[in-house]
């Protein structure tokens, strides 16, 4: 943690965060309105698909997993760094995560919500969603728990529940801070939301213990969730999918994309909410350094896939990877490699990773690259499998683009609403950081 942060007083921390909750101006409501319009547009596309049928999407035979599954994996991936920052770095006592932990946790919760929508959208006949629940159907058949798709339902539901509870529990002391400084209706609302938290020794004693257990449980969960998502593919005997590297490869990729999204969100929020003393350049630089690491891991994974294909002497696997690099979707592969591996290496230069503009642009590139990674894996896998006569092509339709646009708008809509009405930085954890630095008081 920097000197700049540890020089803050408790009162300054509270005031900085509470200032972000002041009534917003017209610009804020305009942004909210535009995002809401985007959400409505996406919802209209989905409704149209429900009424007309899933044939409106570009999915076909053999490519029956398209942008809906790509976006599902993309958003689950985005969700992962929230738990990395809030849980794993908490266990490692990495103090630099404190200023961004709340924002990352919030990103996790909203991203899992968006991801959770996609299986419903992909179903087409959304009213038969009960087939995914552990209930017998009319022929007394139960879901098959040997299927990775059922693992996924269980894992994602668990992840949404756990990350939501973790997020809200961590927010309780901050909600009490807001309650204690609010008046009128806002005070009543925050009194209810804070559950009567008063920071008693008894509260802290159990809270710190409970929070530690939350972190300890969320850590294996986050690794298991994206491993389970990867098994949706790896347990299918499709060339390009059926490989043991998928679980760690997906987990690293998820963290890579999530960290990039943290930077994409943090840099504008830092500017808008005047968080310069809290979310310092050092904090963002640490995230950037972690992106270098995850970028190298995904780069290694891309290379390993090619090595395995060559070493296997399996002509189908070798053809798959040859086609991936030079075939019809080669542009996706090279966007993926460029954005996820090559461009993040610019962060090796200190001047680049401390320059907010560069950092923001690189984070956008990584987000694009990670979306294309899922495109390359999901579409590329089934487009070019064993039998040449079954090879196919896929182009997303306007309905799919509309739903995707709506989903992005929904994510930012929820996030912007949250950032202005709830504490977007954990005041308590910032106070702990400052306290450890030996400063406190008014």
């Amino acid at each position: 943690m920097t000197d700049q942060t540890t020089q803050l007083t408790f009162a300054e921390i509270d005031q900085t965060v509470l200032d972000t909750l002041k009534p917003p101006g017209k610009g804020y409501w305009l942004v909210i309105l535009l995002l809401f319009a985007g959400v409505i547009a996406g919802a209209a596309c989905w409704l149209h698909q429900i009424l007309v049928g899933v044939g409106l999407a570009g999915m076909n035979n053999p490519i029956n997993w398209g942008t809906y599954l790509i976006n599902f994996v993309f958003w689950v991936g985005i969700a992962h760094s929230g738990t990395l920052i809030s849980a794993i770095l908490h266990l490692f006592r990495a103090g630099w995560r404190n200023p961004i932990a709340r924002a990352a946790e919030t990103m996790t919760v909203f991203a899992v919500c968006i991801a959770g929508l996609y299986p419903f959208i992909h179903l087409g006949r959304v009213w038969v969603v009960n087939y995914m629940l552990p209930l017998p159907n009319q022929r007394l058949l139960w879901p098959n728990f040997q299927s990775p798709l059922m693992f996924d339902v269980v894992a994602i539901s668990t992840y949404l529940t756990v990350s939501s509870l973790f997020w809200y529990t961590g927010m309780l002391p901050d909600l009490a801070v807001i309650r204690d400084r609010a008046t009128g209706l806002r005070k009543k609302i925050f009194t209810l939301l804070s559950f009567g938290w008063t920071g008693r020794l008894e509260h802290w004693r159990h809270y710190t213990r409970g929070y530690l257990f939350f972190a300890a449980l969320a850590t294996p969960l986050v690794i298991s969730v994206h491993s389970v998502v990867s098994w949706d593919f790896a347990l299918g005997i499709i060339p390009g999918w059926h490989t043991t590297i998928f679980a760690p490869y997906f987990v690293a990729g998820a963290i890579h994309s999530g960290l990039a999204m943290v930077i994409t969100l943090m840099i504008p929020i830092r500017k808008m909410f005047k968080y310069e003393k809290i979310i310092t350049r050092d904090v963002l630089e640490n995230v950037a350094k972690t992106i270098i690491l995850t970028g190298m891991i995904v780069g290694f994974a891309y290379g390993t896939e090619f090595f395995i294909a060559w070493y296997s002497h399996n002509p189908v696997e070798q053809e798959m990877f040859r086609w991936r690099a030079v075939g019809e979707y080669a542009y996706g592969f090279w966007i993926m490699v460029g954005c996820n591996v090559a461009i993040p290496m610019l962060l090796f230069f200190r001047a680049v990773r401390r320059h907010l503009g560069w950092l923001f642009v690189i984070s956008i590139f990584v987000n694009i690259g990670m979306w294309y990674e899922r495109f390359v894996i999901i579409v590329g896998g089934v487009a070019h499998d064993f039998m040449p006569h079954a090879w196919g092509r896929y182009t997303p339709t306007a309905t799919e683009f509309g739903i995707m646009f709506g989903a992005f708008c929904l994510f930012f809509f929820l996030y912007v609403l949250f950032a202005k009405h709830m504490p977007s930085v954990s005041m308590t954890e910032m106070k702990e950081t400052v306290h450890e630095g030996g400063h406190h008081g008014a």
Partner: protein
Amino acid sequence: MALNAAHKLKKAHRYIMGLFTDEDQAAAAVQAMETSAYTLHRVHSPLPSEKLARARKKKKSMVGWFTLTGGIIGFFSGFALAAFTATRWDLVVGGKPIVALIPFFIVGFEFTILFAVFGNVIGLLTQTNLPSLKNLEYYDPRCSGFHYGLLASCEPGQEDGLKQFFTQKGAEITVFEEKG
């Protein structure tokens, strides 16, 4: 000397809170109060404080037992659910077992985490006695900012002594009005 957190606040007593800006002073006041004639009911702080916890000689939280219990129930529930549903249609496919240990272990694992977290939350709520708006009685909102608050009581007529005690220890004073 009653330092029980669950101590019921008696209406006949007078309640005074000492507000410290320094953690060490607050911890010293907690220790000094043990040998005084006053009763310390609560200690509030804006962040977790090891020093205050030590001064009040608090034991480890019991929340972990709730978490562990939840986790054990979760593992067996998840595994049992997967095994039960598999036996409802016990057609052997490809010579593979009906009750397959490896895939069902994954379901068991996810349920372990889910139920352990439920146990954790139940533990937290029951141990901290939340939600409860009664906690806001005899509470000074400055305690969530940067003050450490010690709520103490005394017999009627001893208020000045208690105020002096806090003042000597370096605290500001909040005197609570008698309720109803």
